[in-house]
């Protein structure tokens, strides 16, 4: 869902458009190497949102939602954020392949126990949902999740 707030004054809207344009051409916090895909090193609110959400879902003793999403029940320390570039590159490549596009995705990679990876591009939306891919340990796609 998204709210259309047309009560923002026109002048403010113009400023917001300019800021949006600047962010598009000069995105802060990104490195040249990140442009080519791999780990997304910008840990913004999307990162915290995903981390918090899937830690809760994976550790939820009420298994209905977790099982429906194909996520094993884990303890909190079995949910980890992956930062090594080799795994990130592999995950980004798997994400690109699964999405069947040519984008060099920068991704967040979460390890869900020993059998699952959750890979998220914080800029990739399907409708109101962030598109995350659930992979097995060898990055074979399991599900395209709306998150």
């Amino acid at each position, binding site marked *: 869902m998204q709210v259309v*707030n047309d009560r923002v004054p026109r002048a403010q809207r113009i400023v917001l458009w300019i800021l949006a344009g600047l962010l598009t051409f000069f995105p802060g916090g990104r490195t040249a190497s990140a442009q080519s895909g791999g780990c997304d090193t910008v840990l913004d609110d999307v990162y915290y949102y995903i981390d918090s*959400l899937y830690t*809760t879902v994976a550790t939820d003793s009420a298994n209905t939602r977790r099982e429906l*999403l194909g996520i094993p029940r884990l303890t909190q320390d079995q949910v980890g954020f992956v930062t090594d570039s080799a795994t990130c590159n592999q995950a980004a490549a798997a994400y690109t392949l699964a999405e069947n596009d040519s984008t060099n995705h920068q991704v967040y990679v979460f390890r869900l126990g020993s059998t699952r990876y959750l890979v998220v591009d914080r800029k990739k939306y399907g*409708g109101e949902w962030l598109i995350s891919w659930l992979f097995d340990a060898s990055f074979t796609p399991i599900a395209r999740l*709306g998150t």
Partner: protein
Amino acid sequence: MPFVHFQVQWSGLRPHGLIRLASAGAIAAFVACTDVDRTVAPAATATQDTTRVGLHRPLATDPGPLGSYTLTTPPDNVHATAWTSTGITIPPSVPIKVTISGTLTFTTNPAYLPCRGFDPGLPPWGSTLGPNGGTASPHDFRVHLSLTQNGNDVTNYSPSDQGADPVAGYFIVGGQFTLWTARPDTYGDICGTNPEWFISGSQTVSAEVLAPPVVTPDKNPAVPGDTVSFTVTVPWAASDTVTGGWQWIPDSAGAPNAAVVRGCGASSTCSYVIYGKGHAQVNGIIAQGMSLSATSPVIAIAVPTLKVTAAPTSVTPNGSVTFTASVTPTSASWSISSWTWTPDSGSGGISPNNCTAAEKTCTRTLSLSGWMKATAVIGTYTRTDSTHVSVVPCLTHVDGMDDSRIRAAVKNYVASSVANQLESQFFVYYDSSTNGYGFVDLPSDSASVCLASWHPPAPSGYPGRRPVAFFHVHPDHVGDIYYCPSDHRYEKAGGGFSKKDYSTYVTLQALPDYQTAGWTHFDFWVADEDFIYRLTPGAKLGSETRLNSTEFEWSGGTCKW
């Protein structure tokens, strides 16, 4: 040789006596002790007068001291203390109390014995004498008070014995006067320049305006047809009687006359059934020998209201609910004529029976949601009010969510969204005027199974209402695979809040007009076909709580809505 006490025949006294007689007639017309009623303005009116045009200067007629004057000892210890103005102005038509305090002390003059050849001892009253003076007539050294020089006494004193100190007197006058005082009657002998006794001490005259009698109603405002009881009291008098009777004076036209219920006449209380604005007047209130009148505050007329409440407003089946009917103004006399129970669907739902007219508060067991209506007779009015009670399978104790009508809305919105495969949303509010919840549809500008755009409602459109929650529906089960048109791809429903849902909630809370209107504390609920998820405000934006909790398994589990 025998000594005979005598009154000093002061030659100058005689002409004054004539003047006294001449002035007596004029004063008598203005002095009222028991014969003439003086209407005393009600306290409320007096208060208004003292605050006019921004000057808080008490009027001379306001209760309080008027002034005092001290009489010194008689000249030469023998002669009369001449009439003198006290400088105290006595206002008209208000009860006045004068107090005279202090005694004269008499001691034998040692020079008198060798002069006259005998010891005079003490005067008949002994060594001291109060303001009443001696008991013989005329009363030696008595302090007289008059409204003119050489005039008649304005009042008698009590107590009346010669040693009493202080003494007081009460009176009302019809015009404005200055108070005069004197000790015209003397006692004692002078031998040459030697008086029999030396006299010491002084006596002070103080005057004050007394508070008017008070007529107090037992209720104000009242509703038409109500009984209002009045009581008259005179705060400064040990006792008072009513001789002039009671009167109801209407202050509005067109209302039926008030009717006496009990008391009135010569009673200190009086009860009227009233039908319009007005006040009670009491005449001939006798206190301290004065005849006073007084009026009550104006009794305002209130249009009564009836309020019916239920506690709790939501229960599980066969839960107990207490219904209470109450009336404003609370002082009004009223009765219940009926209670009516109307379930939202079907019949019955209340046990063991409906509430009865004898009960203003009743407790019953409910198995169905519905409305309880009370009808009450309040004076000449008949009023009704009702309240809704929800019976739900389980209680969440979340604001608004235990209302059966909101639950029905959730069911309907989810069913409709699923049928149409379109997201939808509505807004749940609390209405303080009905003490109930309601909801408003928030139509989408555009919608699909995975996205909806909509406009937040403006607070100005919802006076008297506060938002409880924004409710957004995802038309799927957790784990469903659906085609998202804007993405041109299939995706699996992850359930719960999307990141954009969370951002929407933060945006709503930060809207300037929401801040201005105090719309700062509301939930954000998301429902899919299985669960309801709930976001609640945090200490600040970005710290919202319950982000990931699966709040209610509303369509399954142990508590299927």
